[in-house]
C-alpha cells in the first residue's frame, strides 16, 4: 500500500461529498483568513508607524527636565535646570552626537496682514532643522550670527506659509508678526506631512529674550551620529549632564533623556502585543473550525460504517482506514487553509490600500497558517479516524 494510493482514495471519498467538504472547510477558511488579515494588518501598521517616526528622525534624542522625581512633581525651579551651559557642554564634549540644539518654545498667533494662524515657535540653533529632518524649500536658514545677535528672523513651515500667504506669494523677505513682535521670514520649509507643518523656527536667543523672557532652556534636542549609536549617546548625555548639574552618585537625574530608538521599541512591542491578541482571537475561530472538522468526520465515520467494513473485507488494514480518514481531514483543513490564505491576503491588501499603509508580505504568517492547518487536520481528524480504524469488519458490514 503506498501513500499515493491512500491520497487517491481520500480524494475520491471527498469528491463524492463536495458540498459537505466545502461547508466543513468554511470554518477553517474563516479562521485562517482572519488570522492572516490580522497579521498582515499588524505588520503593515507597524511599518507605517515606523516610517512616520523615521520621518521625525530615528536618531533623535530629546532631553527635558525631569517632571517627576521620586514620585513628587517637579517645582518650577526644577523645570528651569536645563541651561545654555548644558547645551554647550554637550556640543563640546560629546563623541556620539552629530548635532545638538537648545530648544525654547513659545506659542501664539502668527499674523500677516489680515491673515492669522496659531503656530508653535521653536527657538533653537540652525542644526535643529537637521535634527528634526526638515529641509528648506525656499530662501535659506538663518545662521549663528543671528543667534548671537538675537535677530528677529524665522523660517516657517508649509502650513503657516499657506495660511498666512493664501495668495501664493513668496513669504521670503516678508515680515510677519508674532505676539506683536515683527519677525522677518528668511526661508520656508518643505512639507513633511502629519502635524509637522505648523512650526516656526527662530534663534533661541530671540525667543528667550524677546518672547518668553526666560534664561533657561525648555529642552535640548540632539541627533546621534547613527541609529546604532543612540544607546551609547544617551548614556554619554547622562554622564555629561550629571557632571554639569553636579549630581552625586546614587542621586536621581534632574533631567530625562528619550531616544527615538527607545520609543520605537516600546511602540513596536505594544503593537506586537496588539497583533498577537487579535491573532489569538482569530485563532479561536480556527479552533472552532477544527472542531467542525472533527464533528463532520465523526458523522462521516458513522455514515460510512459499511464502506469501512467493505474496505476492510477487501484487504484494507486498520492503518489504511486510519490514514484515509486522517488524510481526508488534513486535505479539508489544508484546502481550507489555502483558500483562507488567498482570501486573507486579498482582504488585507484591500484594507491596507484603503488605509494607505505600506503593504508588507508576511511569509511567516502564511507558513504558520499552513502549519496550523495541518496540525488542526491531524489533531481533530485523529479521534474519528481511530474510531473508524478500530471497527470490526463483520459488524461494520452488517451496520444499518
Amino acid at each position, binding site marked *: 500500500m503506498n501513500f499515493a494510493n491512500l491520497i*487517491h482514495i481520500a480524494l*475520491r471519498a471527498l469528491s463524492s461529498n463536495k458540498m459537505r467538504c466545502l461547508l466543513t472547510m468554511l470554518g477553517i477558511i474563516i479562521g485562517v483568513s482572519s488570522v492572516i488579515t490580522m497579521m498582515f494588518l499588524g505588520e503593515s501598521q507597524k511599518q507605517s508607524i515606523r516610517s512616520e517616526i523615521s520621518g521625525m528622525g530615528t536618531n533623535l534624542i530629546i532631553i527635558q527636565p525631569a517632571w517627576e522625581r521620586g514620585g513628587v512633581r517637579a517645582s518650577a525651579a526644577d523645570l528651569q535646570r536645563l541651561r545654555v551651559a548644558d547645551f554647550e557642554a554637550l556640543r563640546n564634549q560629546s563623541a556620539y552626537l552629530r548635532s545638538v540644539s537648545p530648544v525654547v518654545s513659545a506659542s501664539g498667533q502668527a499674523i500677516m496682514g489680515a491673515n492669522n494662524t496659531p503656530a508653535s515657535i521653536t527657538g533653537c540653533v540652525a542644526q535643529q532643522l537637521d535634527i528634526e529632518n526638515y529641509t528648506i524649500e525656499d530662501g535659506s536658514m538663518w545662521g549663528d550670527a543671528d543667534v548671537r545677535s538675537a535677530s528677529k528672523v524665522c523660517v516657517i513651515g508649509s502650513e503657516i506659509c499657506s495660511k498666512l500667504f493664501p495668495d501664493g506669494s513668496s513669504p521670503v523677505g516678508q515680515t510677519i508678526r508674532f505676539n506683536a513682535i515683527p519677525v522677518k521670514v528668511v526661508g520656508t520649509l518643505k512639507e513633511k506631512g502629519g502635524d509637522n507643518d505648523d512650526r516656526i523656527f527662530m534663534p533661541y536667543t530671540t525667543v528667550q529674550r524677546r518672547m518668553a523672557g526666560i534664561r533657561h532652556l525648555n529642552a535640548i534636542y540632539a541627533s546621534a551620529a547613527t541609529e546604532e549609536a543612540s544607546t551609547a549617546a544617551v548614556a554619554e548625555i547622562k554622564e555629561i549632564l550629571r557632571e554639569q548639574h553636579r549630581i552625586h552618585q546614587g542621586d536621581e537625574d534632574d533631567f530625562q533623556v528619550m531616544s527615538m530608538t527607545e520609543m520605537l521599541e516600546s511602540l513596536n512591542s505594544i503593537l506586537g502585543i496588539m497583533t498577537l491578541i487579535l491573532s489569538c482571537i482569530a485563532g479561536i475561530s480556527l479552533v472552532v473550525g477544527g472542531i467542525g472538522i472533527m464533528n463532520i468526520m465523526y458523522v462521516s465515520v458513522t455514515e460510512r460504517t459499511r464502506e469501512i*467494513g*467493505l*474496505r476492510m473485507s*477487501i*484487504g484494507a*488494514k486498520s492503518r489504511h482506514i486510519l490514514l484515509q480518514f486522517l488524510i481526508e481531514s488534513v486535505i479539508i483543513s489544508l484546502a481550507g487553509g489555502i483558500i483562507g490564505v488567498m482570501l486573507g491576503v486579498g482582504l488585507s491588501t484591500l484594507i491596507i490600500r484603503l488605509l494607505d499603509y505600506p503593504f508588507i508580505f508576511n511569509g511567516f504568517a502564511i507558513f504558520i497558517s499552513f502549519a496550523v492547518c495541518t496540525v488542526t487536520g491531524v489533531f481533530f481528524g485523529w479521534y474519528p479516524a481511530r474510531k473508524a480504524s478500530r471497527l470490526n*469488519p463483520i459488524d461494520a458490514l452488517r451496520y444499518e
Partner: protein
Amino acid sequence: MAQDQRAEIIRMERIRRDFRVGSETVHALRGVSFSIREGEFVTIMGTSGSGKSTLLNLLGCLDVPTAGEYYLDGIPVRRMSGNERATLRNRKIGFVFQSYNLLPKTTAVENVELPLLYNSTVGRAERRARAERALRDVGLQDRMNHRSNQMSGGQQQRVAIARALVNDPVIILADEATGNLDTRTSFEILTLFQRLNAMGRTIIFVTHNPEIALYSSRTITLRDGRIIEDRINTDVASAAETLAAMPPEE
C-alpha cells in the same frame, strides 16, 4: 477419483467457534470439517441460526476459529494477525454481498479498482486495465463510467462481482448474492456465476434459498453449528436455460 487431483483451496478441520454473550457461551460452530477443491461451485445452506454466517466470516478470514484449523490455499489462518488476514483477503478472496456494498457516487471502474488500491504491487495502468477486463467479464463493458447510483440492482451486483474478480482470487465468497434481486435478475446473476465457474473459478455461495442449490455442483447444509449434509450434485441445472424458459418481461 479425478476430483481428488484438483488443488485443495479450502480445508476446514474440526472448526469450532464460540461467542460469549453476557455470561453464556454460544456455540455457533461445533466442529465443522470439509474441504473444497479448485473449480467447485459450493452452496452452503442453512436457516438463520444454523451458523452459516459464522462459517462465512471464517471462510472470508474476517474472523478466526476458537478451535480447529482453517487452511486457505494451504495457508493456516488461525494464528494470523488482523493485518495479515487483511492482506490474505486482498490477494486470495473475492467477496460478493447481498447489498452490493458499492461506494456511492463512484463509477463502476473505480469501484472495481478498489481492491487493487490496497495492493501496492499493482501500478496505476495495470489497475485500470484489470478493472476494465473484470467489467468485460461480467458484461458491463459499456457501463464502465456509470456511477453506482445510475445502475440497476443487477448491474450493481455485476459491478460487485467484477470487484470480486479483479484481484484474481482463489475463491469467490457470495453472501446471499441474489437476495436483493427479482427472480429474473437473480437468474442472470446465477448464470454469470455458472459461467465464471465454467471458466475455472471456485465459488462458495452462502444462502438460505434451497433453489440455488440446484445450480451448484455441491451443497453443504448446516444446522445448529454442524454439517448435516454434504452432497455432490451430479445433475447441475443450467441457470441460462431456466432464464430462457422464463416468460418474457412485459
